[in-house]
């Protein structure tokens, strides 16, 4: 099964938006990493990941988001995430990733932050 079918990619004002419609346990996290690395290979600089339809995220997925955010910043871009459920926020806070990746309440606020 390919979970990237549940990861919708679109673009708005030059910013790539990934809307994820599946929980991010190990299997889907691997697909998310592949999708993000594909964007890096295309020299995309600005990415927003919308997690409004995600009810679970593990450390592999958080690590993928942290890693890509750091690499994008090296080239002047960034990855921002938005619309986290409370338990996802707790996971980011527990790992400490909320101090590394910018988190916004809504997709619009994440887009406006670029």
């Amino acid at each position, binding site marked *: 099964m390919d979970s990237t079918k549940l990861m919708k990619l679109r673009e708005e004002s030059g910013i790539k938006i990934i809307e994820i419609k599946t929980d991010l*346990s190990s299997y889907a996290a691997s697909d998310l990493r592949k999708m993000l690395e594909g964007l890096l290979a295309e020299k995309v600089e600005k990415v927003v990941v919308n997690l409004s339809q995600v009810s679970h995220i*593990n450390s592999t997925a958080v690590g993928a988001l942290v890693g890509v955010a750091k690499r994008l910043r090296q080239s002047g871009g960034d990855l921002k995430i938005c619309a986290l459920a409370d338990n996802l926020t707790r996971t980011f806070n527990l790992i400490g990733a909320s101090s590394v990746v910018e988190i916004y309440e809504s997709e619009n606020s994440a887009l406006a932050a670029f």
Partner: protein
Amino acid sequence: MAQADIQLQIPSAAFYIEPVRAFVGNLAKSLGFSRKRVADIQLVLDEVCSNAVHHGSVNATVGVKLCISIDTDTLAILVRDTGARHAGKKSWLTHERLSEIERNRSPNNESGHGIFIAKSLSDMHEMQTNASGGTDVRVVFRFLKPRDIEI
């Protein structure tokens, strides 16, 4: 009062973690854990199983075994791998390796958070090398109130 054990075995592949996570989530919910605690239990299970699949198995056919035990006070989950995922390393659990992971854990790192999460969110966390040379990880979650289980 009775104790119940549920035994599961999955292929050592990430794809099979998701259905187990869903099953354990439904079980924890049925046992009366709060929504927040169910999410904790599911996350810990995901992290422990991910380590077993990625670090603790020769290949997908070997499998990861789970034993889920329910009694009046606790829900306990044992995850057992067989080791030897990487050449030259049987069990991925060594005192030195664990110390290194814990010492180097940082929010900036992409990996190395799984054991920290399992320790942080469970009421008890144990790791030890098993008889087959792999790793056993046991996590325990306590009920807020003792249950009178009829199973």
